[in-house]
């Protein structure tokens, strides 16, 4: 059987890759891609804890479902914002969208 | 007799015995048998696909008062093979600036999205690839892969028309997934399970009698999902030349084409499974597994024929009308129907069988009637707004 630690390590790596994407990509859409990876790693953890805890207690899956909903909402609003910004500023580079500064 | 009843198990046991004789571990043998089954199913489907081409061409020509293929073989039966040979020996072009990997991946995904659907199709009481308890969702998930293949094809071709076609197709498929999933939940309510096998087993009364409106909505959404006329936004020959598959040629185009036909047939099959009892026909399915498969295919062919009938009868609808139709009419109606069905199901939980069927049927008719009335008055107002009062009078 696959030990629980494998899943946890896997999701940790996935999370870090997503984090790297969020911190380092220039494109706003790419940042959102990174966020998706991070959310997915969380879901893997939730499902793994469900499977390796008490299986009849479905809480882990419920949380994963909620994360799906949140991810869908986040992406739709996030991409709408990106498109709106692109219309106004004609760029999707995160560093160029810095009107909120000193 | 066992072979007639349950051929799959007999064959599997037989093969297992042979493999065991070769000294193979049981686990590996099982895996191998599974792969063998998949291979056989896919191969049979591809053969079926070839004949679907012939059927389609024959039917369309009858619709159009022609005779159709009649030169190659009796009734033109060999014609599809000729077509295949033509496609195989054509030059396989790849446009300049295309994204090669995605360009070549797209037709495969397209075919795959259709073939994986057959994993959950219950061909006979005992012949069922995987009895997923979430089969309904699985159908939608496979549709998502189809969407993906179209986007891939449209984008990677490096052609405006194909990109526009892909966008349209993706928008349509994403939109029509919603009413489709919603009405697929109605058989789920009746059955209490999302498994396709369970849904078939539960249809002592065909669900079309319980939910005629749901069957109609499913058919409409399925046609849109298939991208067939009148909803063939992705191809739209007169506007986009050929849409997302414009740059494809040879066997790659052939895979799109075959995928589309098989997809249509498959959805005819799902229509039959979800609403017309699948392989069930007054106990005949218990006689022999082959009879059950025949019944299912017969029903699927009727569904396929209806889809063709619609395709060759109706004109293409404009994309904005079509999306508006989905979001402003089909989706709300599907939601209302789902709620009404759930409500009636709870209400009539302890009612007698006939009362249950009657109540469900009437609630469907009522929802249909109300939604049509609402749509009619809304469209009349819209027409008055757009065309002015006099134009409306002229229409009437």
């Amino acid at each position, binding site marked *: *059987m*696959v*030990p*629980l*630690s494998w899943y946890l*390590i*896997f999701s*940790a*790596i*996935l*999370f*870090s*890759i997503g*984090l*790297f*994407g969020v*911190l*380092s*990509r*220039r*494109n706003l*859409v790419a940042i*959102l*891609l*990174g966020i998706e*990876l991070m959310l*997915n790693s969380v*879901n*893997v953890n939730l499902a*793994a804890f469900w499977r*390796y805890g*008490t*299986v*009849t207690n*479905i809480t882990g899956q*419920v949380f994963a*479902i909620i994360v799906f*909903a949140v*991810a*869908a909402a986040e*992406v*739709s*609003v996030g*991409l*709408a914002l990106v*498109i709106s910004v692109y219309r106004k500023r004609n760029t999707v580079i*995160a560093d160029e969208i810095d009107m909120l500064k000193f | 007799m066992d072979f007639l009843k349950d051929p799959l198990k007999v064959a599997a046991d037989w093969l297992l015995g042979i493999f065991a004789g070769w000294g193979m571990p049981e686990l590996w043998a099982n895996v191998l048998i599974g792969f063998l089954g998949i291979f056989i199913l896919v191969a049979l489907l591809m053969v079926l696909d070839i004949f679907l081409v012939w059927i389609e061409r024959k039917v369309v020509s009858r619709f159009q008062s022609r005779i159709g293929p009649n030169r190659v073989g009796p009734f033109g039966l060999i014609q599809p093979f000729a077509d295949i040979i033509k496609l195989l020996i054509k030059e396989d072009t790849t446009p300049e600036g295309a*994204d090669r990997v995605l360009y070549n991946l797209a037709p495969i995904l397209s075919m795959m999205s259709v073939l994986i659907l057959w994993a959950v199709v219950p061909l006979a009481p005992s012949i069922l690839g995987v009895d997923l*308890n*979430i089969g309904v969702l699985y159908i*939608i*998930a496979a549709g*998502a*892969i189809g*969407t*993906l293949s179209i*986007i891939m094809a449209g984008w990677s071709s490096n052609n405006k028309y194909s990109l526009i076609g892909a*966008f349209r197709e*993706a928008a349509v498929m*994403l939109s029509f997934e919603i009413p489709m999933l919603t009405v697929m939940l109605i058989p789920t309510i009746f059955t209490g399970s999302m498994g396709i096998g369970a849904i078939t087993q539960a249809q002592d009364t065909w669900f079309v009698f319980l939910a005629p409106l749901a069957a109609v909505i499913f058919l409409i959404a399925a046609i849109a999902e298939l991208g067939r006329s009148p909803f063939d936004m992705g191809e739209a020959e007169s506007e986009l030349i050929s849409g997302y598959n414009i740059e494809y040629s040879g066997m790659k185009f052939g895979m799109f084409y075959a995928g589309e036909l098989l997809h249509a047939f498959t959805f005819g099959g799902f229509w039959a499974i979800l609403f017309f009892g699948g392989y069930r026909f007054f106990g005949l399915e218990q006689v022999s597994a082959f009879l059950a498969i025949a019944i299912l295919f017969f029903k699927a062919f009727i569904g396929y024929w209806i889809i063709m009938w619609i395709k060759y009868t109706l004109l293409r609808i404009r994309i904005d009308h079509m999306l508006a139709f989905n979001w402003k009419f089909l989706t709300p109606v599907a939601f209302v129907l789902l709620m009404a069905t759930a409500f009636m199901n709870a209400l009539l939980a302890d009612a007698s069988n006939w009362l249950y069927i009657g109540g469900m049927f009437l609630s469907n008719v009522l929802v249909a009637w109300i939604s049509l009335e609402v749509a009619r008055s809304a469209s009349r107002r819209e027409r008055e707004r757009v065309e002015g009062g006099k134009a409306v009078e002229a229409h009437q």
Partner: protein
Amino acid sequence: MTIDQIIFLVVAVATLIAAFRVVTTGNLIHAAFWLIAALFGVAAIFAILHASFLAVVQVVVYIGAISILFIFAVMLTRKDMRDQGPQLNRNWGFGAFLAALALVGLVFLVHGWSGVTKTAPAFPSEFDAVSALGNALVSPDAYVLPFEVASVLLVAALVGAVYVAYNRK
């Protein structure tokens, strides 16, 4: 190594490679498609975990909707099809360091936790995870409130997205 482990390792490595390509590839469209591959991998992981509902929903929601949305967004936010300039910002090195630091911290925490060596309990034969999940989502004793809140959130996101992206001309 058992078959389970081999399958898991293959899937996990493929997923991680895909994920890595998501954050490093220069072509954003490719990044989106790599994301799809990574999400497929995660769906496979769910399937290995017997979370069949999650696996299918992962395909439907992430691949069927979210990824398509990403592709749309990528295409809508560019004037031509080619990508210009570097795709990583000036601080990417520091970002990589921080991500690595986070990974080290997480692995350290996982390592130090006693429950990490747990193996999966046998899957109860008569237990239907999908129906249990469905009941949990709509049972007042369980999670009907978060479920409804999530629904409201989705509606709000729908309206908000349309409002934000609406082109007023």
